Each structure stands twice: as structure tokens, then as C-alpha cells.
């Protein structure tokens, strides 16, 4: 293990596709237990970076550690210690709620007893114990998103990656979802989250903003607003991303 205080440590992370530089020397740390907002315009290079941090894509160069492990040589160890959820894909729609828990718990190598225990606990916390044998496809999106998050953290990962977790959900569910994120962070899980809702950037401890493959800004929302003389994070984002060059769509 490197520095015990950091969950992610990236130094000069570069990812090149042919002549295109998707990630251009990204240097940043994510502290343990913090909610880290990873913002950027479409095409700025966020997805590329997340894939590297999850151990799914090999960077071109750099020194990168996730949960203390090297992304070049220890990707299998990384995968066991992280959770992942996105808006596009989260749960198997044709499986029931408890089957999804069993499936993901199995993948993460949890024992049958601890899967059963965890499933019960999480459904109880969501107040939906009675939905345990319901097919996912028949559930409203709001409940599905909350379930997907529960599944992503059922093996108590060190870090959970949330890729636009609240896209399209109603405003009440969106807030309930963020309450769950806060609770996970308080329980010590580091949260790495992307979003297009700029009010959600305010819920993060620190926020980085990517423009054209580089991290243009990284600080607390309060400091960013001060620095860019903006009244909210939307204005900060617009000021930074509007200056983007040809690399943006």
C-alpha cells in the first residue's frame, strides 16, 4: 500500500488512441471516504479515465494506484475492491431482486450466508423487503436505481464508481439517492461520481472538471466558485467548458 489516506492516486495518467490523446497527463488524488465529483463535457475523456481506474483499460503511461494497487499489474485485485454502477447498465432485468444480489455477490466472491444477510439488510434499509422476488423489469426506475447502488456496494468495496447514476430519475428519488451516497461515504466507502446535474456537483466534497482530456480545475465546490467568480457550479462549468477547443464535439 502507498499512502493510506488516498483511495486513488494518479500521476501523469495518459491514454492515447492512435494520435488522439483522450487523457493528457491527469494528476490527482481521491481521499478515502470522500465524495469525489468527476465532471466534464461529453467527449472530455471521463469514460476513458473511469475505465482505466476500474482496471478495464490499460493506460498508455503514468503511475496510477487504485485502492493501493497498480493499474498496470494488479487489475484483478482492483476489481475485487471496487463497485460500479451506471445509468445505462445496472441490474439484470430478467432476474428478480434477490437473484441480482446473489449474482453480484457471487461474482465478488461473497459467501452464501453473507449474501443472504446483506440482501436482507439492504432491502430493509430501502423499505422494500416484500419486493425480494419481483422481476427487476417490473420495478419503477427510481427503485431500480437505488437497488443498483445497493448491489454495487454490497461487498463493501473501498471505492464505488457511479457513472451518471441519477440520469432521468424524478427529483425526490434523486435526493433519496444522494442521501444513500452520503451514508455510504460516512460508512467509509469512497465515492467517485459523474453527473450532468450541476446542483449535484455541490454535494461532492471535491470536484474535478475535465476539458479536452485534461483536468482544468480540482477543488471544493466553494473554492471553485470563489476562483471562477461564479454563484453556482453550473456557471463554473460553463466558464471552463466553453473555452474547450476542437477536441470537444
Amino acid at each position, binding site marked *: 500500500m502507498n499512502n493510506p489516506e488516498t483511495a486513488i492516486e494518479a500521476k501523469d495518467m495518459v491514454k492515447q488512441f492512435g494520435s488522439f490523446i483522450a487523457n493528457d497527463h491527469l494528476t490527482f488524488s481521491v481521499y478515502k471516504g470522500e465524495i469525489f465529483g468527476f465532471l*466534464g*463535457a*461529453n*467527449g*472530455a475523456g471521463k469514460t476513458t479515465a473511469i475505465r482505466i481506474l476500474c482496471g478495464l483499460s490499460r493506460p498508455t503511461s503514468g503511475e496510477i494506484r487504485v485502492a493501493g494497487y497498480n493499474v498496470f499489474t494488479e487489475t484483478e485485485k482492483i476489481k475485487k475492491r471496487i463497485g460500479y454502477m451506471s*445509468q445505462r447498465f445496472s441490474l439484470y432485468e430478467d432476474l428478480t431482486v434477490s437473484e441480482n444480489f446473489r449474482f453480484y455477490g457471487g461474482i465478488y466472491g461473497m459467501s452464501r450466508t453473507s449474501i443472504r444477510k446483506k440482501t436482507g439488510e439492504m432491502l430493509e434499509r430501502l423499505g422494500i423487503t416484500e419486493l425480494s422476488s419481483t422481476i427487476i423489469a417490473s420495478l*419503477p*426506475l*427510481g427503485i431500480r436505481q437505488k437497488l443498483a447502488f445497493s448491489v454495487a456496494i454490497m461487498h463493501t468495496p473501498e471505492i464505488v464508481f457511479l457513472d*451518471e447514476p441519477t*440520469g*432521468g*430519475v*424524478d*427529483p*425526490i*428519488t434523486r*435526493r433519496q439517492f*444522494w*442521501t444513500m451516497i*452520503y*451514508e455510504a461515504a460516512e460508512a467509509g466507502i469512497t465515492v467517485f461520481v459523474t453527473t*450532468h*446535474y*450541476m*446542483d*449535484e*456537483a*455541490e*454535494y461532492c466534497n471535491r470536484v474535478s472538471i475535465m476539458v479536452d482530456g485534461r483536468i482544468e480545475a480540482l477543488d471544493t*465546490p*466553494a473554492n471553485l466558485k470563489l476562483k471562477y467568480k461564479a454563484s*453556482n*457550479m*453550473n456557471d463554473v*462549468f*460553463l466558464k471552463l*467548458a*466553453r473555452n*474547450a477547443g476542437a477536441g*470537444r*464535439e
Partner: protein
Amino acid sequence: MSEYAISCSGLSKFYGKTQALDNLNFSVKQGEIFGFIGPDGAGKTTLFRILTTLLLADSGNARVAGFDVVKDYKSLRKVLGYMPGKFSLYQDLTVEENLAFFAGIFKADIKENYYLIKDIYDQIAPFAGRRAGKLSGGMKQKLALSCALIHKPVVLVLDEPTTGVDAVSRREFWDMLIRLKKEGITIIVATPYMDEAILCDRVALIQHGKILVTDTPSVITGTYPWKLFRVRSDNTLNLISQLKKHPEIHSADMFGEYVHAGTEHGKLSAEEIRAFLEEAGTVTTEVSEIAAGIEDCFIDLMRKENE
């Protein structure tokens, strides 16, 4: 044609036992930008598919651009522009070929109508020879809008054109819509983003297949029934639970760095809220009365609906 570009009465639609649309009644005036604001699953796509003659309602009727959506569907299709939520262009055709294809089936002259799409298409023109499937998300969106416009439709139907799109591209897209409105095109647009409501002339807030309210954004926010405060402290979760302990505060919801707390008018002052929180050990850095936004209204209407 009447003053309405779209009028619907008693529109309902079931999928098996699930009611997707529940007796919708609304009208859209000619030349309006009319927004349907609501989460996924609210019924927006079902409604748009009925209005574009792609799906039959179980009951009720709808007229679009002077045509009945069932009886006159052939005539209606000629004057409609439709951009579905899912990218539906031909992935294997190039940018240029897609545009030519859509102009062809509508027998439209690209040169004649080019002025309508110029601002949008110019941005993707450098990639005219690229296959649509190889475009980035933002470029696909621009091409889809160009194809929906090339026959100069009377009514433009946009199903979640800005979902998953970043804040800068979203703003650019809305600038384009406002320019199209000036050309006299009636636009209905679905979006899950509450902040886009203020860019519409009128909006319908929709949830579980029902319209919660239809009006101009300023009337909707102006008739918000509660007195609203925004409160800020270091610990948002703790602040919410403290606020909820006050008998006169009936809602406390996070809004960015603030919590919005609703009370009945004339019951509480900012000073009283500050003092109450201080007594509970919560230091606030701001407590002030504010005007409600669309999202406050939506949350309030949803709660009433759920009661």
C-alpha cells in the same frame, strides 16, 4: 387551422395492466415551445409516439397541425419533424447520406431549406463523409435534429434531445430551439431536466402518466403554495433531519449547497429558523427567504399526488 398546433382530449394508453397515460388534456399554441417535464417512465415517450402517429391511444383523441392523428395520419406525417429519444438514423450511412435520405422521402429540397439547419449542420459538415454510427454523442444529436428539420416541418417533436448531454451542449441546443421558434415552428420537447423548464413558453409537469400542472413557468412558480427558505450549514444531512424536527417545517430538501425548507405563510421567520437550529447545535451560514423554482414546484406536486 385553429390557433392550436396540438390539442388532446382524454388521451389514455395502457400497456397490459400498466397505465402509461391517464386521461391527458392539453393544447399547444402555434409557435410555442412547449415542454413536457418529468422523470423516465412518466409517459412522455408514449405521448409523443401517439402524437407522431406511431402508436394508437386506447381512448381519447388528438389533433396535430390540423390533422387527426388516426384518420389523417398520412397527411400529418408530411408536416411533422420527429427526433426520437433513441438515436434512429442509419448508422451505416454517412452524415451527408442520412440528410439526403430524409430530404428524399419527404421530397424536400436541401438547398431551399438549408437556412433552417445551417447553424446546426455547419458544425457537423466537416464530418459529412463519416458514417453516422461513428459520430460522437453530440454530433449524432445535431445530425438527428438536421434530419428532423430538413423538410421544414410545421410541428417539431423532440423526445429528450438533451438527456445525457453536458451543460454546455445543452445550452447550445436550446439556443438552436429558440432560433427555430422564430421561424414559426411549433416545438414540443420532453426533458427530465427541471432547469430547462424556464426556457419553454409553457410546460406540463408529468408524472405516472398524469399531467400535474400546465402553465407558463412563471405562473407555476408564482403559485407555489408555501413560504420557502434556503438554509446552509456544513452538514447537509444533519441539517435536513434537524429542520424536519420543527413542527411548522413540512419539507426539507437538498438543493445543491442549500436545503430548501417549506412552511406555511406567516408561521416562521428566517430568524426563528436560525435560532431553532442553533439551539439544536446546528450552526447555519445562511437562512433566507427565496422564491420557488420549477423543481420545488415539481417536488411539492409529486408529494400531493403520492398522498
